[in-house]
């Protein structure tokens, strides 16, 4: 079951890289966060770790529902351009993404060798991190860059739950708080500015 959701997590991120519409991108981010939340719940149940269960629920509520909702309302309030064509052409992206996946599996090998449990998941989290960076790089518009940053945070969360069997509860909650603060700052940055290039 965990394998299935890890696969969905990676698949949703790859699909997001090819998306050319903003709302569709937000939907894929929401789905990516949902699979992450479910993964936290599954691994938390397996490890009997209540802290991970709480963060799993928080992930679903904040990242899968709250943040996409706020970003969508920002896009309506500030009239974002909804056509977001990636700078990297599809035919090149199709070659680049598997290359990143293979490269990160090779790169992460010395790290995964040292991690007793879920070593493949660690490699997937690292490749997700690179794919999120690619999402930030392949768009000129600000909105997909924000989604790229949020996806990067999701990849780090996945790394946290797979490589370390969960970070301390305090740290997880702090990261959520900072994420909400980031949304407030993003709102202020958009506020009262011309959105021609956003």
């Amino acid at each position, binding site marked *: 079951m965990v394998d299935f959701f890890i696969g969905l997590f990676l698949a949703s991120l790859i699909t997001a890289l090819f998306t050319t519409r903003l709302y569709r991108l937000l939907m894929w981010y929401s789905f990516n966060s949902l699979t992450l939340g479910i993964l936290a719940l599954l691994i938390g149940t397996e490890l009997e770790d209540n802290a991970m269960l709480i963060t799993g629920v928080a992930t679903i509520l904040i990242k899968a529902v709250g943040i996409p909702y706020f970003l969508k309302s920002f896009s309506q309030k500030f009239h974002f351009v909804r056509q977001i064509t990636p700078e990297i052409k599809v035919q090149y992206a199709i070659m680049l993404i598997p290359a990143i996946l293979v490269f990160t599996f090779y790169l992460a090998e010395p790290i995964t060798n040292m991690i007793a449990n879920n070593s493949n998941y660690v490699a997937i989290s690292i490749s997700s991190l690179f794919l999120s960076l690619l999402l930030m790089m392949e768009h000129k518009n600000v909105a997909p860059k924000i989604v790229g*940053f949020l996806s990067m945070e999701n990849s780090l969360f996945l790394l946290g739950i797979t490589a370390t069997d969960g970070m301390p509860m305090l740290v997880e909650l*702090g990261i959520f708080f900072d994420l909400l603060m980031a949304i407030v700052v993003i709102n202020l940055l958009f506020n009262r500015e011309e959105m021609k290039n956003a």
Partner: protein
Amino acid sequence: MLELLLLPVLVIFGLSFIKSPKTHKPLAFISFLILLPSAQLLRLPKPFHLLGDYLVVDDLNAYVLFVSSIVGIGVALALMTLDKHVKVSKNAYRRFYRFFAIFWVGLIFSILSNHMGIYWIGLELATLSTVYMIKTNHSNAAHKEAWNYMIVGAIAISLILFGIILIYASAKPILGEDAMNFNLLLAHAKEIKSPFLFEIGFAIASVGMFVKMGFFPMNLWLANIERASFYPVAALFSGILESAVIIGFFRFSKIAMEVNYNHLFTFVFIYTILTIFIVSFLIFRTKDFMRLFSLSGVEHMALIALFWVSGGTFAALLHFGAHAFLKPALFLSTGVLESNGKYRIAGALKGYKGKKGTLFWFLVSLFLLAVISLPPSPMFFSEIYGFGAMINVAKSGHHLLAMMGAILILLILLSIIFYKFVEVYQSMKYEGEEHSKKVYASELFSLVIFALALIALITPPVMNYLKGIS
């Protein structure tokens, strides 16, 4: 004690919501109150547990917090006359203070933390709050750079979190959830079963911190942001935010020294020399004050990191203190020198008349010459001690000749920077036309505070305190 530290910050945050044109004046004075608990922390017996094992005060972080609170006062004083030099609305002023308060909360937690997670949360909070401070300047360049800072800053901070997760993963088998605790991790560093995993984590976290400080390959991003934002923001970046970043580097590298010193030294040595090499030539080509001081800040942070990993703790901390006072002082002076958008270097120091004017150009000259390590600047002494520490490391590692060569290259690069600063100073003092210019009492007062703090750094009690930090 934590309440006392947070109280002025919370008052500033609350007052920033009051819509009165006179609000910014009391706000500046409330910033002074942060100094009192910071000074008290210096005197308390160490280690002092401020919040269980999460926030622990030791000699190192008490010093960094005290230096930061002095810088905070200087910046708050200069903020009082910001509207005299640049166009800024009352609303933007209040919002600036609101985010200044959030910035302080983040800093207090990251500087005093004994926990990798809390350190990261504090740093992220401080980083996010500065994004809006950049935006206070309603120009297109500032708007672009605020987004730039948000995105590059987010990547840098994510790299730090990535590194922390790997470090935590490497130490969790022996320490459990306490693997986030800096002191415990340091005590059990030699027992870590996967040192390679720790080192990978450390290297990634360090690269994140280096990016935040403008090291190779991101040498210009900070300079562009500081150019686009108002000058107090640049002062806050160089005097306070970078302090929070470098204390993280100090903590992480202390543990890395126990795991494998040679790997740590080689990594930081190559990285910092490469950074100084590129920065020295960028400084040589610079044509405005902000970029000049910003790039010089990158050079000094690289030197601090190099001295620290060479075992020159005293040299690194003295250099850190001097840089934390000198760079904000120079940035705040820039605000006066470039008043109303006049970015000319030639003749910038001419036209300051009367007692205030004379004192202003004297202090600016003093800071400019002190930042290039002319004796008796604290930076002169810190560099002597720092290079001494590097030679000692080379002696124990039997590669003295290579180190001498590296120091020679460093001195050549520093001399390029020295030449540029002297040229800029001469152009400011002896070239260009003379126009009547004005400097305000609060700005002058903040520069006097920085000058006194610099002198205090080379007094025996402060030197002894710094030597006592191991």
